């Protein structure tokens, strides 16, 4: 519920071990995906000789910078498959991790503002329902019942013509999620190694043998990349070129406010998505900055534009105050879908291109990526997201359904 104090974190989270000389699996990237992958490698596949290498502090990249929306109402079967798998895991994750991750299934509204939005939205709802995903189409008055502060006045510039609604969707507390995975991974004996930047990847006879890091060389049977926005930089180390572009994505929070916003509202047409987090702050995301950038900061006019759009939708926000803005680096693909699977280098695995969808996928992709790394074969849920699709043309194009697929 909104407005309650956050639960305390446990008294112990993880060790801070020095890296060993060699591991069975080295995961590059100590964000949500890397930590979840480590956890499921141990839990589902019994592999614990693992190091998770993080160049900064654990979960300090996109995991610390996202707006924590969790939903599975994607258009295409392939997408809804992996996101729904993830959502099902979210539903039991608190018990599984024994960590109060504050997963709150308060529902997500995706607003439609044009007649074409309505067509696209209803198409998605119909597809979701047939895929067993809870999805509804709501007329404007029903939108107002779910979220009374949404302005459904038909005379505004881009009136709300309806919305899709996924009741099981929601939000969670990002740090708690990451630390929950990290604590469990650490308890399995997995080494979480911070301030350890990978500077090279060793390949012998087409097969990965280890990584070079700022804390020494580490041999590895398998290397799993989970570097989000920095994946291109990592892949470049083995000469692997990927269809990725890294862009800044900005977000912001307000001060703590009495509960006003009971759900999550997303509007792709005007690039607003907003929820009210557990303590009462409004958490909002903006559109992606247009240019490639690793600077973890975006341009201010994006935020300005977003504030204007937010006030059109939520006039009550006028005197809420913007407390902090920040930016993450999202790695985007040509079809707005991720790449998860094998690479041309034996025993080197790839998980990237999540764009704005990474947080919600955390348990799902951790599960599937662990399967891929452990067995050397993609899990059925991530098989459609192979790198090869860009050659065959079998894209999973989520642009049409959601220009900004948060």
């Amino acid at each position, binding site marked *: 519920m909104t407005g309650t*104090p956050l639960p305390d*974190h*446990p*008294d*112990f*989270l*993880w*060790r*801070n071990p020095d890296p060993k000389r060699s591991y069975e699996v080295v995961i590059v990237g100590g964000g949500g995906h890397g930590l979840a992958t480590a956890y499921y490698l141990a839990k589902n596949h019994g592999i614990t000789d693992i190091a998770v290498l993080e160049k900064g*502090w654990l979960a*300090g990249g996109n995991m*610390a910078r996202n707006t924590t929306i969790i939903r599975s109402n994607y258009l295409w*079967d392939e997408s809804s498959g992996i996101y729904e798998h993830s959502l099902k895991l979210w539903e039991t994750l608190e018990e599984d991790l024994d960590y109060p991750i504050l997963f709150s299934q308060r529902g997500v509204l995706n607003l439609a*503002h044009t*007649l*074409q939005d309505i*067509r696209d*939205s*209803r*198409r998605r*709802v*119909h*597809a979701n329902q*047939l*895929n*067993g995903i809870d999805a509804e189409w709501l007329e404007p008055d029903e939108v107002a019942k779910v979220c009374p502060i949404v302005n459904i006045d038909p005379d*505004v*510039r881009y009136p709300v013509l309806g919305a899709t609604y996924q009741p099981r969707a929601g939000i969670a507390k990002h*740090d708690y999620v990451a630390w929950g995975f990290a604590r469990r991974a650490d308890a399995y004996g997995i080494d979480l190694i911070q301030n350890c930047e990978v500077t090279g990847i060793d390949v012998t006879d087409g097969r990965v043998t280890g990584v070079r890091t700022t804390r020494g060389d580490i041999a590895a049977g398998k290397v799993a990349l989970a570097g989000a926005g920095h994946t291109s930089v990592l892949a470049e180390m083995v000469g692997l070129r990927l269809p990725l572009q890294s862009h800044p994505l900005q977000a912001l929070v307000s*001060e*703590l*406010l*009495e509960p*006003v916003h009971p759900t999550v509202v997303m509007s792709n047409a005007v690039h607003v998505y907003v929820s009210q987090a557990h303590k009462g702050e409004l958490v909002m995301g903006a559109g992606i900055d247009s240019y490639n950038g690793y600077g973890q900061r975006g*341009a*201010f006019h994006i*935020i*300005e534009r977003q*504030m*204007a*759009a*937010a*006030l059109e939708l939520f006039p009550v*926000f*006028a*005197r*809420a*105050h*913007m*407390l*902090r803005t920040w930016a993450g680096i999202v790695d985007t693909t040509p079809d707005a879908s991720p790449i998860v699977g094998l690479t041309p280098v034996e025993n080197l695995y790839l998980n990237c291109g999540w764009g704005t969808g990474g947080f919600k996928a955390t348990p799902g992709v951790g599960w599937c990526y662990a399967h891929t790394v452990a067995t050397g074969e993609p899990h059925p849920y991530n098989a459609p997201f192979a790198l090869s699709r860009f*050659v*065959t*043309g*079998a*894209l999973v*194009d989520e*642009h*049409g*359904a959601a220009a900004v697929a948060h």
Partner: protein
Amino acid sequence: MSNAFRVDALGSVDRDKSLSFTFDGREYTGHPGDTLASALLANGVHHVATSIKYGRPRGIMTAGVEEPNALVQIEFPFPEPMLTATTVELYDGLVARGLSGQGRLSTRPDTARYDTVHAHCDVLVVGAGPAGLAAALTASRAGVRVVVVDELPSPGGSLPGTAPACEWVADVTDELSANSDVQLLRRTTAIGYYDDGLVLALEKRTDHLGAAAPAHVSRQRVWRIRARQVVFATGAYERPIAFDDNDRPGIMLAGSARTYLGRFGVLAGREVVVFTTNDSAYLAATELADAGARVRAVIDARSEVPAHWLDACAARGIEVRAGQAVSGTSGAERITGVRVGDEEIGCDLLLVSGGWNPAVALFSQARGTLRYDGVLGGFVPAGALDTVRTAGAARGVLGSAEVVSDGAEAALGALAALGKTAGEPVALPAVGDAPAGAPGAVLWQVPGSDDAQFVDLQRDQTVADVLRATGAGLTSVEHVKRYTTIGTAHDQGRTSGVLTSGIVAAALGVDIAELGTPRLRPPALPVAFAAFAGRNRGELFDPVRVTSLHRWHVEHGALFENVGQWKRPWYYPVGGETIEEAVLRECRAAREGVGMMDGSTLGKISVQGPDSGELLDRFYTNVMSSLKVGRVRYGVMCGVDGMVFDDGTVLRLAEEEFLVTTTTGNAAKVLDRMEEWLQTEWPDLRVRLTSVTEHWATIPLVGPRSRDVLALVAPTLDVSNAAFGFMTWQDTVVADVPARVARISFSGELAYEINVPAWYAHTVWEALYAAGGPFGITPYGTETMHVLRAEKAYPIIGQDTDGTITPQDLGMSWVVSGKKDEFVGRRSFDRAENRRADRKQLVGLLPVDERTLLPEGAQIIATETVPAPPVPMLGHITSSYRSDALGRTFALALLRGGTRRVGETLYVPLEGRTVAVTVTDPVLYDKEGTRRDG
């Protein structure tokens, strides 16, 4: 007892006027020039808020934006959540209350205006304290353009309210004001440094006027100041010390008590204890004593206290205890005493100074690097940047005279960087600074009960919380911040950040210089959403684009559809018709009589030059270069991925001139794309592109009687089929207006597209409307257009396509030239995925029940009963309408292997049932094309 703590002869509030205000339900008075905090203190009110986690009483700890405690909710004149009482200027009628953690948003609409202004200068000075004023005056005298922003209502900053200081400030301010190249912005706080010298600042223009604020003046203004050189003279924030129960009302930072006394004439307490690690608090001790307070003791953590401060205290009967510390406090609603060693000293005010933290947030945003200053116990700028420098306390320089010199010095640096020569040096104020003092001690914490020692008062986090975080294995301050939430509140950790780092460093046994502090993110001050939205609200939120016929549509009752930024007539209901009734009527008119619509939003690109045909051949999937002058051809463009990008007609106007039309939504994209390839890939082609979208108004005149109507208004035009055939165009005169008319049909009916310069659109439209009267001419909108074209299976790009559809998928292999080796996207047709026989293809769907209207977006399955999920889906419905011409409903769909399924019965699952549909060829009306010639 009103204003019992007001001291005569000090401060600059206007005592001739009284202001009434209400706080927590009680009425008080204050004066113009007060803040809410100073007025409360003048009335002896210290307990103003309640802490978020433990519900402890909290007071007023500071006098500025760094305030962690005194959070208030404004209730009148308009509710505003979570402001600091220390920054709310008092006005008559203010109603506020203290907060416990959460603010409240108003449910009333905020009708205040907000705006944005761009400003440009050579030197921007942030802060009009002694350093800032000196910097501004130095820059001003060099003849450059200067902007100065300062958060207070009047310049002067931390300078004491003594006569010589005030005089200096007045002189400097007068000189700055007299220079038309200097802009001094009061009540204006810099909130962020962005790239290339852009500083955003928020000006509070009318907040201090309360309900008397004029409605036509913006309440707050965002300044976007683009400066070639920036000087941050942002001062420093005093640092608290962690000791037991350090959060009670009546515990205040020492410098803030000076501010209350000097600026507002308010004595924050009568029985005072001072706890310090440095010299600066002695100013507070002596000034408060001089103003009538009884200063019981100065507890100095240092073992050596400078002699002149000992003397000054002795002269005032103030006991100085060196080498001691305050270890705890007592009191409930207000502090009643402090514990020093075993001794309890009674007091109603405890002043604390743990040293000073330079205000480096903006410098840090400018990507300036910081270094730890061990003497100061804080982080200071490591050095100036090319275009950004800091001055005064913001870079750790303390002492008024030094600060003024440092400000001038910074401006000289900026001028040198600009290549400008300095003018006359700035005179120093005669502020009679105290003799040089001793360095401060760095003290984070006094040993005691960790769980009673507050580090972040706003988040109610204690030393124990910090130690729990480090004990959990956290070694990064960013992790500690997240574990404890320290520094994430309203004040962004201005008072808690460095203190936290100090405690973490001590706990982990690492160097604080290595550990650093959590990153400070913009904005430096919380800013109302509405201020950033500015005037981009309501009708100015996003431009509404209208055609030259817009007024006519409005006057004739059209309802409008948003298409991109355009407003297009959607349908024209008559006499209370529903959309369905109106569209059936409009369709019937176009099929049986004559209709007209406003097609002006179609994109129009003039393509000229000897290589125009070649350029078009490279873009369109069919051949355009072979088009004869006077003729029109339909074409499709694909992306490099082979997917349909846009479609439209191409007119060949002359041997070297074509007119390309695009869809409304893609007009700019098509032109941009053609320009991009022309400029970057094919600069050798001699072609020029010019948008003429808005020069021409376009009026399709549609239906079997369109020829009759046109003949009436274009008497010089031979409208016969022989003279004016399908897919040709002619220049003529329509309603006395020079016009270009084309025989183009997006409905299958006989139709003319009349193009006239937009100024004449209204005249020509009215002439057509009048001439068509006897034929029942009917204006129609986009909905009818969609139905008419769907009956003919003409796709709408973006509705019947979704970026995954090729021309072949649309059944338009005929538009893909077999003669050309190459056009953009052709290669993609040969990919494995494109060769699949079961690609989705455009088909018609006829519901077996002729009255059932299928919802657009519905999915198609193979079985009458819906199997358990996941259900295999064959495709979806892209367009679905009731057809007057067919006398039934119909739909278009993208269906897997669709062309081979013609004749099959498939099912559309809807809520709780399935609808049987027959797959058909998509062209459902006049397949033979007999109607296009009338």
